């Protein structure tokens, strides 16, 4: 164990692989010194594990209705009680983790790279490329996210896939802005001039040298945004335009529990609690990442 650690923090790595792993190890170590980030990371880890092992963690079939067991309060048999169709809320929350995780991953996979490429292109080339790309970005940014997502879902039709697409469409502009700002700070650096002098093409300069510098602020931004994405997805679910019944999506679950909020509080509260917990987890982790990946202090690692 100590030998692995020594290998990782070796000041004179012997291969690019070791250098890169060493860097990750240092970032990881710094992250682990931040208690809130650790809490955040644990929450996210629990979310991922729950999603992966949902069938083993859930105590019931999340979709099976048992009308005889409607609206039971939390008990040993039903840890979080049951809903108006007699389904076990704990099992539904557990399976809901899969949907939440799918939403955040898909949005991250769709929106972040799109925003990154658009932002870097706008920042690096400047001039009319910048004006056109940023004009479009600004139009998107000037509209409230949820409303815009609503409009897209309304046009595409309700459903979880369309909700994901809508959220992705509404989140790339934020990433494009971040990437552009980063690119502007780096594109005039001497190290970029130096690669250009070696004869590198614009494509190579951008993909190989500018883009990697934007990724850390991107990771931070995406992580911090996750909370908002989960809430938007829940919001869409809540008003019936996101996940459709009987899918155990947390927002939709709250929406249905709303009618019983006074007498059967657990129906709406349990999924709400899950949403808050996961959002907080992403926020904590994002804050911690921001501290360790801050491009200015990041040079030290």
């Amino acid at each position, binding site marked *: 164990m100590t030998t692995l650690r020594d290998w990782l923090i070796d*000041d*004179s*790595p*012997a*291969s*690019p692989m*070791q*250098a890169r792993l060493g*860097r990750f190890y240092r970032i990881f170590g710094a992250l682990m010194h931040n208690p809130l980030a650790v809490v955040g990371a644990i929450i996210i880890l629990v979310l991922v594990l729950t999603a992966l092992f949902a069938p083993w963690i859930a105590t019931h079939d999340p979709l099976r209705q048992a009308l005889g067991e409607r609206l039971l309060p939390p008990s040993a048999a039903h840890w979080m009680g049951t809903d108006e169709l007699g389904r076990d809320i704990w099992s539904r929350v557990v399976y809901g983790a899969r949907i939440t995780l799918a939403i955040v991953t898909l949005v991250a996979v769709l929106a972040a790279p799109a925003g990154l490429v658009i932002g870097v292109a706008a920042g690096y080339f400047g001039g009319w490329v910048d004006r056109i790309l940023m004009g479009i970005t600004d139009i998107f940014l000037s509209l409230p996210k949820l409303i815009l997502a609503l409009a897209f879902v309304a046009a595409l039709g309700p459903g979880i896939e369309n909700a994901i697409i809508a959220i992705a469409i509404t989140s790339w502009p934020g990433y494009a802005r971040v990437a552009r700002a980063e690119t502007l700070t780096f594109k005039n*650096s*001497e*190290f970029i*001039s*130096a*690669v*250009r*002098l*070696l*004869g*590198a093409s614009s494509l*190579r300069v951008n993909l*190989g*040298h500018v883009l*990697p*510098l934007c990724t850390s602020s991107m990771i931070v931004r995406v992580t911090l945004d996750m909370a908002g994405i989960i809430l938007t997805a829940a919001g869409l679910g809540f008003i019936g335009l996101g996940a459709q019944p009987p899918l155990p999506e947390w927002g939709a679950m709250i929406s249905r529990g709303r009618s019983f909020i006074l007498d059967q509080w657990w129906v709406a509260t349990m999924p709400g609690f899950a949403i808050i917990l996961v959002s907080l987890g992403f926020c904590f982790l994002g804050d911690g990442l921001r501290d360790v990946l801050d491009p200015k202090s*990041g*040079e*030290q*690692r």
Partner: protein
Amino acid sequence: MTALSLKNLDISYGDVQITHDVNLEIADGESFALVGESGSGKSTVLKAIAGLAPEWTGEINVFGKPRSHGIERAFSRQCQMVFQDPYGSLHPRKTVDATLGEALTIHGIGDRSARIEEVMASVGLDRKFRFRFPHQLSGGQRQRVAIARALMLKPKVLLLDEPTSALDVSVQAEILNLLKRLRQEQNLTFLMVTHNLPVVSFLCDRLAVMRQGRIVEVADVADLKRGDLKDPYSRELMHISAAHAN
């Protein structure tokens, strides 16, 4: 043979003309210094030669061939530049190996590992630095990496923009010794911008003094050593430098 010749060079950024009628002839193997007022356009001249300041009129010839306004690969192999700031001229997320290897990849040159180790050895960098990130290097080591990167393509001309002004005197001495040695070993031509006249006296054969975008005097370093400069502004620079030294 002339390595570098500039004729009636006027360089502009947008509407603003920075240099006026710059003429220089630098022989193959010569070490030439460009000194002068801050903001007078010294770095701009280097950038125009390198292709980073493309708005110029006049003539730039490198080994007799006229220079275009952009950056071409063939030119990259002839002429490279070392920047002033060793902290800003290395990519913070790339190891020394990646920084040096980039040139080879761009030009499709094989034998990567051997070439990198050879150049590192020639600038006096130990092999153990090969996979370090810039933040794990001192200022002097970074500047060695920057010089090594410039040497990767075996150029004949090196443009040096204040290569030692961010370094302490002891590291400066190391880098100056290194540059002197490399020039002898590889028959390099230097065009170096600096504010430090003693550095000129140590490393260069001739110097040009610039002020407000114009060259006011070209002289031999022997003249500088004897205190024999003609132009009033060059004399002023020389006298202040001499006053500091004692």
